[in-house]
C-alpha cells in the first residue's frame, strides 16, 4: 500500500484532532437519519474516508496510523460502514494502483464510488495460459479510434459476478518482448462482450470466475498508465496484493490453530500419541509465525521495513494446509463427512463458518493464489538473498515468437 513516505505527512494533525473532526461531521450528518450512501459520500468528501489519501480524494495526506482513531469514532456512533470485506480488491489493490498511476480525472472519477462500495472492483490478470508467468498473457487490445477493442479470456477472478469495474492487463504490442508490450486498463464489467462464468473449485463452491472478453470496447480515457507500461502498473497492483496477505495482529490461537486446539481440548477420545506430537508442533509453528507477524509490524512501525513480509505468506500457506489436514484427521469418522458440495457463490472467503473438510480443501489454494509458494521462493532467493536469476529464454524475444 502507499505509505507515508510516498504521500507525505502533515505534521500537526493528531488523532485527537481527527476525532474532533469526526464529531463535527457526525453533528452535521446524523448517522441514524442519513441515507447510507449519501452518508458515505459525505464522509469521503470530508477527507475522513482514508486519511492517508490526498486531500480531495477522501483523505488528508496524513499518516496511515491515524486511521484507526477515525474508524473507532465512526463505529462508536453506529455510523454505516463501507463494507470493506465486499470490496477487498477494490480497496486493497485497485485504489493504490489508481492513486499511483491514474490520471487526475481517473482518480476523481473512480476513487469515491470505490471507497463507498458503490462500485466493486475485480482483477482481470491471470489467464489459462498465463499464471505464474503473468507477463506471457495473450488477451489482445487493439486500438480503434478513441477506443481499444479487447479479446481474450481471464480466469481466477474473484468477485467478477458482483463487480462493476475491473483492473485489466492486456497485450497491445506482440512484436516486442513480453514485458514491454502490455497495457493496463479499467474495464466496465457491464460493457457488451464481457461474459462472467462461475469457476467451480475443489470445495464445490465458486468464489472465482472465468471472464470471457469478446470485442469489448474500452475508451482510451480508461487506460491506466502509458501504452506499453502495463507490466509496471501490474507490478504495483501485485505488490499490494502481497502486502495484503499474511494477516493482521491476531491474539494467540486467533488463527486456524485455535480451531484445532479447541477440538483437541473438547474431544479427549480423539487423541492419539502421534496426533499429540503433531498438534504440539503445529501449535509451536503457528505461535512463532504469529510472533514473526508482530515483529514484522513493529519493523514497519519503526520505519525499518524488511523483506520479512515475503516469508509471512509462505509460512501462512503451509501452516494452514498442515493444520487443516491435521483437523480432518483428528475428526476421525466425522472427517469422512463434508458439509455441502453444492455450487454456492460466496462473496467473501470465510474459513471458519464451515467444517474442517472445507478448510482442508480451501487452504490448498493458499499456496497458489497471490503468487505460488514456488514463485515466492524465487523472489526471496533473488531479491532478498541476491542469488542469480534463472537462465531466461524469453527475455529478449518478441512475445509473438515465444514457443507456446
Amino acid at each position, binding site marked *: 500500500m502507499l505509505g507515508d513516505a510516498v504521500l507525505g505527512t502533515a505534521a500537526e494533525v493528531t488523532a485527537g484532532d481527527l476525532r474532533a473532526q469526526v464529531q463535527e461531521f457526525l453533528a452535521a450528518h446524523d448517522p441514524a437519519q442519513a441515507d447510507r450512501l449519501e452518508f458515505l459520500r459525505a464522509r469521503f468528501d470530508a477527507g475522513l474516508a482514508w486519511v492517508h489519501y490526498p486531500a480531495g480524494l477522501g483523505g488528508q495526506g496524513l499518516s496511515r496510523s491515524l486511521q484507526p482513531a477515525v474508524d473507532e469514532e465512526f463505529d462508536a456512533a453506529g455510523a454505516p460502514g463501507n463494507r470493506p470485506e465486499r470490496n477487498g480488491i477494490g480497496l486493497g489493490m485497485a485504489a493504490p494502483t489508481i492513486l499511483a498511476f491514474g490520471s487526475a480525472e481517473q482518480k476523481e472519477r473512480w476513487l469515491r464510488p470505490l471507497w463507498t462500495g458503490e462500485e466493486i472492483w475485480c482483477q482481470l490478470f491471470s489467464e489459462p495460459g498465463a499464471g505464474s508467468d503473468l507477463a506471457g498473457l495473450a488477451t489482445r487490445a487493439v486500438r480503434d479510434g478513441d477506443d481499444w477493442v479487447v479479446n481474450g479470456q481471464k480466469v481466477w477472478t474473484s468477485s467478477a459476478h458482483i463487480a462493476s469495474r475491473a483492473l485489466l492487463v492486456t497485450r497491445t504490442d506482440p512484436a516486442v518482448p513480453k514485458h514491454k508490450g502490455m497495457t493496463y486498463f479499467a474495464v466496465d464489467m457491464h460493457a457488451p462482450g464481457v461474459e462472467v462464468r462461475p469457476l467451480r473449485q475443489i470445495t464445490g463452491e465458486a468464489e472465482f470466475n472465468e471472464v470471457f472478453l469478446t470485442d469489448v470496447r474500452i475508451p482510451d480515457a480508461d487506460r491506466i498508465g502509458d501504452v506499453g507500461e502495463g507490466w509496471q502498473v501490474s507490478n504495483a497492483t501485485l505488490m499490494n496484493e502481497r502486502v495484503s496477505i499474511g494477516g493482521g495482529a491476531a491474539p494467540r490461537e486467533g488463527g486456524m490453530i485455535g480451531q484445532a486446539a479447541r477440538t483437541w*481440548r473438547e474431544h479427549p477420545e480423539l487423541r492419539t500419541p502421534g496426533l499429540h506430537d503433531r498438534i504440539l508442533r503445529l501449535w509451536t509453528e503457528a505461535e512463532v509465525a504469529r510472533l514473526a507477524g508482530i515483529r514484522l509490524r513493529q519493523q514497519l512501525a519503526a520505519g525499518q521495513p524488511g523483506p520479512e513480509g515475503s516469508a509471512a505468506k509462505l509460512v501462512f500457506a503451509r501452516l494452514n494446509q498442515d493444520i487443516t489436514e491435521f483437523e480432518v484427521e483428528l475428526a476421525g469418522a466425522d472427517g469422512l463427512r463434508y458439509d455441502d458440495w453444492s455450487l454456492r457463490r460466496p462473496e467473501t472467503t470465510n474459513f471458519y463458518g464451515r467444517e474442517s473438510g472445507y478448510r482442508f480443501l480451501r487452504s490448498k489454494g493458499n499456496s497458489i493464489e497471490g503468487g505460488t509458494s514456488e514463485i515466492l521462493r524465487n523472489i526471496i532467493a533473488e531479491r532478498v538473498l541476491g542469488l542469480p536469476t534463472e537462465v531466461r529464454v524469453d527475455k529478449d524475444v518478441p512475445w509473438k515468437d515465444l514457443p507456446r
Partner: protein
Amino acid sequence: MTQATQTHPPAPPLPGQSAGRSSGPDLLYSEDETDLRGAVRALLEDRAQWRDVLARTETAQTYDTGLWRTLAAEVGAAGLLVPEAQGGAGASYREAAVVAEEVGRAAAPVPFLGSAVVATTALLAAGDDELLAEVASGAVTAALTVPFAVVGFATVPFATGSGARQVPTVRLDGGGAGDAAGIYRLTGSVAGVADALTADVLLIPADSVPYGLYAVRADEAGITRSPVVSLDMTRQLCDLTLDNVPARLVAGSERAAQAVAAALTAGAGILASEQLGIAERCLELTVAYVKERRQFARPIGSFQAIKHRLADLWVAVVQARAAARYAANCLATGDPDTLVAVALAKATCSDVAVKAGQETVQLHGGIGFTWEHPAHLYLKRAKADSIGFGTADAHRASLAELADLPPAGADGK
C-alpha cells in the same frame, strides 16, 4: 511450477480499516543492543576466526580464557545480567541474547552461556552478592554443575522450581548441618557439564538433606574434571566427580530449587539466541558460496533446486528470530509468559540451527564435508545445542501443559 492464480486474499487489512499500531512485546533490537552487537562482533572477528577456533579444538585448552577475559573487560559481557549496584553492567536478558547470537555466529569457545547466563541467574536468584560481583567482573568464571543434556528439564513442575530437585547430582554427606565453619561435604558425580572445564567456581545442586545449592572452588582437593571428547569441541563438556569436597551453602531448599530452575530456563532461552546466530551465519556462508561456486558454466545459486532450499532456510531464520527475541524479552521483563516463550524459542531455534548446519554442509558439496571448512564447527555446535538445556521435543512436550494441549489418555478439562 504450479499453475498459478492471483486471487483476493482471505482477510486483507484494508485502507480505511487499518491494521492499527503495533504493540505488545518488543521484538526488535534497540540501538544500544545493536551497538553491543557491533562491539562483540568486532572483537570476535578479530580474535575468533574460524581457523583459530578450529585449531583450538585440537589443543588441551579448548576454552579461550584470554578471549573471555577481553569480552568481560571490554564489553562487560560477564556482568550483563547483574545490576550496577552489584558490580555488573545493569543490562538484561535482551542484551545477553544479542551477545549469545554473536557467540553463536563465531562458534566462539567462551563460557558466556555457562557463567554469564546460567550461573549468574542462579546466583541472582540465590542472592549471593559477593560471588555475584566477582562473576560479574569476569574475575571469576562460574558454572552450574548440571548435565548440559539435562533430562526432564522442560516440564512445568521443574520450571516452577519444585521439579528442579529431580536434576541429579551430588550427595551431601554428613546429614543436615555443616561443620563449625558452615562447611558441608559433597560426594558424587555429574556427567557432561558445559563450561565447567574453564570455571573457577562450581555451583553444585546437591541432593539428600538438605537440598541445596553449594559453591566450591574448582581447584579444591577431591574434585576431578575429566574432559569429554565432545560432539562440539567449541564447548567442551567435562565429567565431574567430587570426593568429600568441602562446600559452602549458597541457598537451601526451595530457594535453591528455584535458583536452579531459573538458571536453566534462562539458559534454554538464551541458548535459543545462540542457535539463531549459528543459523544466520550458516545461511550467510552458504548464500555467499553458491553465488561463487560455478558448475555447468553457471553459479550453482542460479539453480532453482538450490535457491528454494535457501529461501526456505531464510524463512526459517525469520521465524527463529521472532521466537528468540520473544524469549529474550520475556526473560528480561519477567513476563508471565516466559515459560511458553522459552519453550517456543528453544524448540524452534534448535530445529532451525541444525537444519542450517546441515544445509551448509550439503550445499557446499565436497568442501563442506572436509575438516578444513567451518561448516562442521557450526553443524556440531548446532547439534549439541539442540540437545543442551532440553531438546526441541522436550520443549514442545512442555507446551502440552503450558498451552493446555493434553496428551492422549489424559482427561480433557
